[in-house]
C-alpha cells in the first residue's frame, strides 16, 4: 500500500510541474462549469423566447411540465453535462500520457522496475494518480454546477433536474468507469509512441462516442434518460474489462524493457 502511495506522490510531484497537464486538469473543469452557468444566467435575463427554436422537438418530452425558457435550460444542462463527461476522459489521458511516455523517453522505468514494487502496484499507482484528479475535478465541478444553477436559475424544477438519477449515475458511476478506460487506453497507446502529445491525441479517440451522444442529442436522435445511462454503464464495464486486460498485458516488466521503444 505504501508503494502505491509513493507512486501517486511521485506522479503528482512530477506531472503537475507540467504546464500542459496543469492546464487540462485545472482549466478544463473550470471552463465546463463556468460556461453553462453563464449561458443559463443570460437566458434568465433575456426573458422568454431565446433559443427555444434551436432545441430538437423530441427533447420537449424530457421537459415534462416545463415550457419555454425553462425547458431550453434543461436542454442546455443536459448538453453541458455530456461535455462534463469528457472530463474523466481528458484529464487521465493528459496525466498518464505525459507520465508514461515521459518515463519511457528518460528511461526512468527501468530503475523503478528494479525495486521490489509489483507490477500491479505500479499500474495501480499510476492509474490512481491519473484517475483521482479526474474524478475529483468532475465531482467538484458537478457540485459547483449544482450550486450555481440553484442560485442562477429561477425555476427550481430546472436545477432539480441535475439531481436526476441520469446525472447521478453519470457522474458517480460512469465517470470513474470512463477514467479507468482513459488510463488503460493511455497505457496501451504509450507503449507504442514516444511523444506524449501523440499519445494524448491517440488516446482521445475515446471522446468520440461521448461527442457522438452529444450531437445525437442535438439532432434529437438520442434521448438521455436513466435507462440510457445504465446501458452506458454496462457498455463501459465491458470496454473497461477489455482495455484494462490489454493495458495490464502490455505493462509487464519484460515487455517494457524489451519492446517499448
Amino acid at each position: 500500500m505504501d508503494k502505491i502511495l509513493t507512486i501517486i506522490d511521485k506522479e503528482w510531484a512530477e506531472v503537475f510541474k507540467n504546464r500542459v497537464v496543469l492546464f487540462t486538469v485545472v482549466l478544463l473543469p473550470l471552463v465546463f462549469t463556468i460556461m453553462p452557468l453563464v449561458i443559463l444566467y443570460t437566458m434568465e435575463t433575456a426573458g422568454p423566447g431565446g433559443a427555444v427554436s434551436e432545441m430538437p422537438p423530441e427533447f420537449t418530452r424530457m421537459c415534462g411540465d416545463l415550457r419555454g425558457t425553462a425547458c431550453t435550460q434543461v436542454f442546455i444542462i443536459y448538453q453541458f453535462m455530456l461535455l462534463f463527461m469528457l472530463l474523466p476522459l481528458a484529464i487521465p489521458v493528459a496525466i498518464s500520457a505525459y507520465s508514461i511516455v515521459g518515463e519511457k523517453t528518460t528511461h526512468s522505468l527501468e530503475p523503478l522496475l528494479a525495486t521490489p514494487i509489483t507490477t500491479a502496484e505500479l499500474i495501480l499507482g499510476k492509474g490512481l494518480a491519473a484517475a483521482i484528479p479526474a474524478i475529483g475535478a468532475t465531482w467538484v465541478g458537478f457540485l459547483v454546477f449544482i450550486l450555481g444553477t440553484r442560485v442562477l436559475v429561477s425555476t427550481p424544477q430546472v436545477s432539480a433536474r441535475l439531481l436526476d438519477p441520469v446525472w447521478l449515475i453519470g457522474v458517480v458511476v460512469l465517470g470513474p468507469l470512463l477514467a479507468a478506460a482513459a488510463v488503460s487506453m493511455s497505457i496501451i497507446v504509450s507503449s507504442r509512441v514516444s511523444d506524449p502529445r501523440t499519445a494524448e491525441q491517440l488516446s482521445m479517440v475515446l471522446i468520440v462516442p461521448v461527442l457522438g451522444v452529444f450531437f445525437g442529442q442535438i439532432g434529437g436522435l438520442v434521448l438521455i434518460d436513466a435507462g440510457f445511462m445504465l446501458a452506458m454503464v454496462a457498455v463501459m464495464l465491458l470496454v473497461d474489462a477489455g482495455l484494462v486486460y490489454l493495458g495490464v498485458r502490455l505493462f509487464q516488466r519484460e515487455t517494457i524493457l524489451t519492446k517499448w521503444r
Partner: protein
Amino acid sequence: MLKTDQLTKQFPAPNGKTVLAVDHLDLEVDEGQVFGFLGPNGAGKTTTVRMLTSLIAPTSGEAWVNRYKVGRDDREIRRTVGILTESPGMYDRLSAEKNLTIFARLYEVRDVKGQVEKYLRMLGLWDRRDDVVGNFSKGMKQKLAICRALLHEPKMLFLDEPTSGLDPEAAKLVNDFVRELKTEGRTIFINTHNLDEADRLCDRIGVMKQKLLIVDSPQNLRQRLYGRKVVFHLRQAPPAVVELVKGLPFVKEVQCLTTESGDKLVVALDEPETQNPSIIRKLVEAGVDIQFVGELRHTLEEVYLSLINK
C-alpha cells in the same frame, strides 16, 4: 554471491529470427568480490545484468543471486540487490532529495530520511539536495544514481557502465567510490568496456562476447596470454652480455632494445620473483651497470583485443 548455470537469453528479431544475446553463461562471483564484466558493445552485458536483477526472464538456464533463484524469488532479489542502470533515469523535474526519497520508500528502507541524507552527503550532493535534477551535470546525475542504488544497503551491487560518458574527473570520483564500497565488503558486479577501469578496480574479470571467453584475475589474464616479462635497463649491453643472459636455462626469450639513455633487455620468465636475483647477480658479475629493473606490463587491452578477435 552470484552463480549462473547455462544462462541464456534470446530476443525475437524483427525479421522473425532470434538474436542470441547471452549464450550459455556459467559464472561464479564470490562474496565481497569486485567482478568486472568486460565486453564490446552488444556483447550481452546489460542483458545479463537485467536477468540477474530479475528485470527480464532468462530464455533458459538458471541463476542465483544472494542465494535467491532468478525466476522464483524475484522480489527477494530486487529487495537485496542494487542496480545502477545504463542510463541514470532520474526524474528531472524533481529535486535530488525527492528522487531518492521515492526510491528509499519503494525499497522499503526504514530510516528514509537518514539513508537519503547519508548517501547525499557521502557523494557530495547534500548541498544540492533541493535542486531539480534536470539542472545537474552528467557526473552529478550518475552520482545520484549511485546513491539510489545504495539506499537499501544491498549486499550485491550491479553497476552497468558506471563511468561511460563521464569526464575523467567524474569518472575518477566514481571509481574511487567503488573502491570504497569494496572495503565495506559488498559484492560488486561491474559492466564495462573500459579496460583500464576493469584492470584497476576488479579482483576478477570475465571477458564476454555472447559467450564467456575467459575468467581470471587481471594479472593472470595478462600472464596466461603473454607470459611474464622483466625489463632490465642497463647503461650499456654488449652482445656478450645478451648472450650470457640468453644462455641461462630458465630464460625463455631475450630482446635487446637500444635507447638514448641506455639499453633495455626484455626477458621472458616464468617466475621473476625467484629468477630475477640470479640474472642480476650474473649482470653484476659481468660488470654491467644496472639502472632499473621492472616488470613489463602488457596492457589488458592487448589481451582483450586478442580474445575478442579470436
